[in-house]
């Protein structure tokens, strides 16, 4: 049986460093399996978040060989074996312990977004073609990998920007065929959409393959432009009922 060398960050808010572990490789193994092996046999207090182990809950995010990923969906056999595999916590969020970070800021941002508000008197008829694009956004598992990779949050620590995850959530609400609220002023001001300069890094890391930039952020930017600088386009949209 071959062995993998893992360099896993161990530490807390005060600091820390990578610690090396050797883990036997089994067929089809993922990085989360390796972390569990470490917990079960070498370091029982290694802090890791996980739930589903099937890419459905978005708990197990970390940076594997420098790339933001779900550890439960990162196959060991897809990583180079001639060098140690590094596993670090998401850099954008403060470390609590080892691979566990403080993501509470995301929950605070989320509270700013008004929930779904149905149109009065609707008969709740909706057609698949009208909801396809919203269903794409609703696939989001809140792994916060897009938040982690976005340079506005990561390098510039501009927490005035809500980040791609919340652009996706707002787009889902704004494009819901039966929603009646207007979140565009919020998108411009409180959510700070202007900070995004469309680098598309978020789209690249999204494990749900949501086209965050093309399908959520750019259309929202267009709506901001319409609402604030082109009232006619906004009016046309209102009249034709396009959301």
């Amino acid at each position, binding site marked *: 049986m071959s062995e993998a060398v893992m360099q896993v960050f161990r530490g*807390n808010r005060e600091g820390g460093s990578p610690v090396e572990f050797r883990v036997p490789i*089994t*067929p*089809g*193994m*993922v990085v989360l*399996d390796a972390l569990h092996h470490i*917990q*079960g*046999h070498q*370091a*029982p*207090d*290694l*802090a*890791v*978040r*996980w*739930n*589903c*182990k*099937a*890419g*459905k*809950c*978005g*708990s197990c995010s970390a940076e594997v060989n420098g790339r933001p990923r779900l550890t439960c*969906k990162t*196959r060991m056999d897809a990583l180079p074996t001639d060098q140690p595999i590094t596993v670090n916590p998401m850099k954008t969020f403060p470390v*609590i*312990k*080892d691979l*566990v970070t403080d*993501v509470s800021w995301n*929950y605070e941002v*989320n*509270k700013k977004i*008004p*929930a*779904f508000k*149905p149109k009065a008197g609707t008969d*709740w*008829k*909706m*057609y*698949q073609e009208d*909801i396809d694009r*919203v*269903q794409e956004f*609703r*696939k989001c*598992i*809140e792994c916060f990998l897009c938040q982690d990779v976005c340079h506005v949050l990561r390098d510039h620590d501009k927490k005035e920007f809500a980040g791609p995850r919340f652009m996706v959530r707002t787009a889902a*609400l704004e494009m*819901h065929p039966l*929603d009646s609220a207007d979140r565009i002023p919020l998108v411009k001001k409180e959510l700070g959409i202007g900070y995004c300069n469309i680098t598309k890094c978020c789209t690249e890391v999204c494990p749900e393959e949501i086209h965050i930039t093309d399908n959520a952020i750019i259309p929202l930017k267009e709506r901001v432009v319409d609402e604030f600088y082109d009232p006619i386009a906004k009016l046309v949209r209102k009249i034709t009922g396009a959301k």
Partner: protein
Amino acid sequence: MSDRFETHEHDVLIIGAGGAGLRAAIEALAHGAKVGVVCKSLLGKAHTVMAEGGIAAAMANVDSADGWIPHFRDTMRGGKMLNNWRMAQLHAQESIDRVKELEQWGALFDRTSDGNILQRAFGGHTFKRLCHVGDRTGLEMIRTLQDRGVEMGVDVYMECTITKLLKDGDRIAGAFGYWREQGRFVQFKAKSVIICTGGIGKSWKITSNSWECTGDGMALAYDAGAELLDMEFVQFHPTGMVWPPGVQGILVTEAVRGEGGLLTNKLGERFMQKYDPKKMELSTRDVVARSIYTEVKEGRGSEHGGAFLDISHKPAEYVKQKLPSMYHQFKELADVDITKQPMEVGPTCHYMMGGIRVEAETAQTTVPGLFAAGEAAAGLHGANRLGGNSLSDLVVFGRRAGLAAAEHAKKVSAPNIDASEIERAEREMLAPFDQSAGESPYAVHRDLQDMMQSLVGIFRVEDDLKTALAELDKLKERATKVRVEGSRMFNPGWHLARDLQCMLTVSEAVTRSALARKESRGAHSRIDYPGLDEQWGKQNNITKREGETMMLKQVARPPLPDDLKKILDE
């Protein structure tokens, strides 16, 4: 009340933030209660998020002949008549409105061509009944409930584990626990407490369940003097992944069969022909799981000890649209393209039909002020649950529990918390740090899982069950001596040391109940008693704590009223 700890006060305290807990919170808030929700993971990550195939409700959008009566009948028949009939009736009647409500709160289910909620076929359901969103229905549901709860201003205590329920005399007074992050203790004072802690799958080696499913709520309620019901009925889902090893047990949704997937053995035979020629692949889960198990045992299994499940005869685009997460799951984790190749599948421990005994209308347990809903509660599903009937259970009885708990809180005065109880809870939690020798909790957990898998699995027999009880005694002894390394800060080893206690309690209740029920019914299959027994069909097993011993007794199943009896005879 002890003031050494951080303290929070609520009218209604809800333990668990899955579908049941969140739905309960929404209802209690709507009735003016001050509500707190505690959960072990981050908000939105509870097990409910993983549900795939759909939520059952007789909307009759696809099959116009459907209605609550056929849904009730299917649920009772699927549960081999051991269900609490009143729960089954309420569930069939109310699930329709509960699904509509989800839509009104923003959920977007897949649509029919005339703009209604689309419904798919599932095992044991006579009509196309499961409302769904591809194969990620649970995610849609938990996000909808989470958004609604947050909008209503619910207080959520995330990554906080409850280790003890507190009482004031006979009635409930609150709960004690710790913050996973810092390891600090915290106490909650509450007039009503609702347990929505989900399942128990982590006691078995091969399971579809997450680390959270350690039966905490059932064990805490048992410790607090509540009764557990039908603990022998553990559902093994027929189709979990079997290869590669790391993914063993991960669920393959029944929707694959609902969408037309075929089961074959290594000889290419559609073996369900032998076991249930009428319903074939869409037979109930207990039957399909036993069939696959038998095929493998008799040497007709696949290379890695499973059966083949094939959907590749459907157009590739259709498969990707209807089963997107299955497509990705197999492609990324098993190198299998399900639009071209069959999947290898085998039984996996999946769902707990048994649990805390509750009253049908109010979800109240036998302890005043203590309620339970969702997978942690028992009664609705009898001896076997139909797919899709859990998500509906969560919203129907989550709502009822939230309502009854809020009403209860209006009627009673503030409880008192007994400081000595808190001190004991604290001591119990800190004990593993004082062990200088002793083994890792992970080692004891592994042995528990191996033991339950081999001795209290799909097929049971008296000798095995007796051995299991003896093994449980040894494991309990070992568990009291486990040693924890490191500090109290986010320490999974320490957390497991506590969860292990809950798993042991629940495993014992399952084993004792399984030993007592000398018949085979639904998910409970005794090799030594292969048939149904008329007397056992009229009674439920109840587990209760008497001092330090686990007592088992039988109670008569509530008699069916004539109108419902007529429905079932049809």
